[in-house]
């Protein structure tokens, strides 16, 4: 084991290296680019035995990732935001090929307005594709999750691609100490890629990714993929235990903090959960029975575990760093789906949207959320969804708008 100071991007690249990926189809996009730069340097120096090719778009990159995995090699790739959406046709397509490979997505807000900073609308757009999704909160977790994702995606009962998600800037460019697994141990943990029936061989004719006619066969293959993704829950548990036995770090499907006696619960995904973590500490000091549930595995969605975990709690705040226009937070509606009609489900499942495009969620805002949860629970009425925005931010945007108006007026005069 080596301890290194790594960015989230560096940790992702190390994950690919330690998993001994054979093939890296690539395309640069901020804030992901460091991943493919690191890998390319290692390949050039002979430190990583892999082939890397830069495609001319993410659409092509994901096609090549899927077709190479379907030809029998271990594939790693990475993207972000606009790139993920540019390749979205192929995200769905290669998942349907049942091509197991691992892609890191470095979350970044979607255009428009165009931005470089982080939120989760990009990764949520891949929600229904058939990719597994693991969301990380630390750089250590990024490296470890890449290793686990390969094992999960390639498992004989699953065989679908997986996304490991990390937040742009907050993780991608933040250096943290990371314990890098020994390469022999990591290789033994992930194991050799068994292509099973996925390969093209002169002596073994095979047509893949064929068309179907009619809803019967189509539904069958779609259901099969869905069931495979669902099976990943129990397989994940086995893999997480094995990972813990080997490397001493255990990652649950849902990471719980101070949940044993919690009456109030923050629900989040990603690195901002570390902010909620701090808020829980402060609130506990102030006498609040509050906990944090950070969802690590988002696809498959662990419905039954969420029911068990949240049963009997007073009120839940689901904090979404995404926004489904005209609906609200994606995570919130998924939790509502899991909890609706369940015995002892919390009466209050409040929705808060924040942290869009790199916007912070301050400690003060967590305290406000708890106050709102308590009031709602006392009244027994779920509050309307809140779009987090402070008076100060509003003042700042009004200033920008005023400048824009002056600029516009000046240009019109000329």
């Amino acid at each position, binding site marked *: 084991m080596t301890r290194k100071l790594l960015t989230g991007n560096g940790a992702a690249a190390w994950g690919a290296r330690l998993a001994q990926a054979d093939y890296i189809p690539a395309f640069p996009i901020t804030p992901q680019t460091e991943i493919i730069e690191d890998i390319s340097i290692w390949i050039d120096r002979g430190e990583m035995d892999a082939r890397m090719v830069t495609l*001319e778009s993410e659409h092509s990159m994901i096609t090549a990732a899927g077709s190479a995995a379907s030809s029998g090699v271990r594939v790693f790739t990475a993207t972000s935001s606009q790139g993920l959406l540019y390749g979205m046709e192929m995200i769905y397509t290669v998942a349907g090929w049942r091509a197991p490979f691992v892609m890191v997505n470095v979350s970044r807000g979607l255009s428009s307005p165009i931005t470089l900073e982080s939120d989760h609308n990009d990764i949520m757009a891949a929600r229904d594709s058939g990719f597994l999704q693991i969301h990380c909160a630390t750089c250590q977790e990024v490296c470890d999750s890449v290793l686990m994702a390969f094992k999960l995606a390639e498992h004989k009962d699953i065989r679908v691609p997986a996304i490991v998600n990390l937040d742009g800037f907050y993780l991608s460019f933040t250096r943290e100490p990371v314990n890098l697994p020994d390469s022999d141990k990591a290789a033994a943990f992930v194991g050799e890629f068994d292509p099973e029936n996925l390969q093209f061989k*002169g002596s073994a004719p095979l047509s893949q990714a064929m*068309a179907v006619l009619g809803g019967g066969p189509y539904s069958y293959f779609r259901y099969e993929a869905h069931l495979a993704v669902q099976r990943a829950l129990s397989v994940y548990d086995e893999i997480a235990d094995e990972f813990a036995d080997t490397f001493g770090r255990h990652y649950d499907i849902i990471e719980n903090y101070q949940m044993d006696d919690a009456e109030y619960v923050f629900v989040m995904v990603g690195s901002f959960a570390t902010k909620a973590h701090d808020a829980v500490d402060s609130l506990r000091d102030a006498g609040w029975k509050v906990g944090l549930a950070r969802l690590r595995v988002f696809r498959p969605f662990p419905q039954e575990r969420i029911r068990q975990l949240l049963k009997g709690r007073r009120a839940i705040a689901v904090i979404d760093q995404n926004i489904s226009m005209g609906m609200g937070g994606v995570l919130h509606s998924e939790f509502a789906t899991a909890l609706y009609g369940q015995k002892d489900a919390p009466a209050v499942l409040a929705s808060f949207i924040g942290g869009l495009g790199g916007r912070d969620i301050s400690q003060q805002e967590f305290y406000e959320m708890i106050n709102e949860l308590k009031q709602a629970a006392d009244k027994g009425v779920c509050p309307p969804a809140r779009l987090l925005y402070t008076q100060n931010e509003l003042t700042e945007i009004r200033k920008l708008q005023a400048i824009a108006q002056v600029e516009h007026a000046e240009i019109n005069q000329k």
Partner: protein
Amino acid sequence: MIKESPVHFHRMKDMPSTHLLGTGTPMCAGCGALEALHNMYDILGEKTVFVNAAGCMTLLSVYPFTPFRGGWLYTSMASAPAGAQGVRDAMDILLEKKKLSEDDNMEVVVLTGDGSAYGMGLSSTSGAMDRNLNFIYLCYDNEGYGNTGQQYSAATPHAALTSTSKGSHGYPGFKKDLFSIWAAHHPAYVATIIAAEPLDLAKKIEKLQTMKGPRMLIALSPCPTGWDYDPQLSVEIGRLAVQTGVWPLKEYIDGKVVHTKIPKKTKLGQRTPVEEYLKLQGRFKHLFHPQRDEQGIAEIQARIDAYWDKVTS
């Protein structure tokens, strides 16, 4: 995979007598694209992976049937060359690691229509050539989005009626010169072919088998449903496309373009007039009915003449 054979195909008698592509596909009767694929597949042989882009040929492999004795992978309309990149790279990695024997190696062939090749797929095709991908690319060009009912594409010739150019003058644009666009990338090989000239086609396939790198083919593919003619005329229309000079058979190799079949001139010093080709097809009927559009026909003829004047001068 490189073959070092001298040219075997001198006469029609030399052509393969076994046909590899299975029968019973849902292609239309008289499909000029299927004929070109047949001819090509017979020469390339079974150790071929076809990486297909959305188009008519997508329906060749419909679960659980496939006419291919080798490999097949359907990708998308835009990214078949990227699919070929992944397959080729994976096989090369496996060969290097001795996980695939040289005997099991396969030739990777992209199969796309003109809708993909001339438009949506051009970026990924260009990228594959930039990367000097070792593959074969077959564009079956039926001059329109055939699988969706023949809307005009960037491959549609001037004046052709399509289901999105039904006006009295047909398609106002001009067929894009994809051959030159490809050749500007300096790939190993570019050629035009047509199934109605199987010997020319066979010689070109045989030649490209001796090369590595991007080997690019455009097959003009007469299309009874899209071009509106009786399916039995497919071969005749194909031959006329060559004889009238509408479809120049040529190849780009080592920086030079060579015409492999120059249309013969009659005693009067004329090539077969283009109207012989046009009048067999419903998509050009407005040039002849209700009255002859002398100017329109003359313009088309003039463009063909200008092309060949440059070639033969």
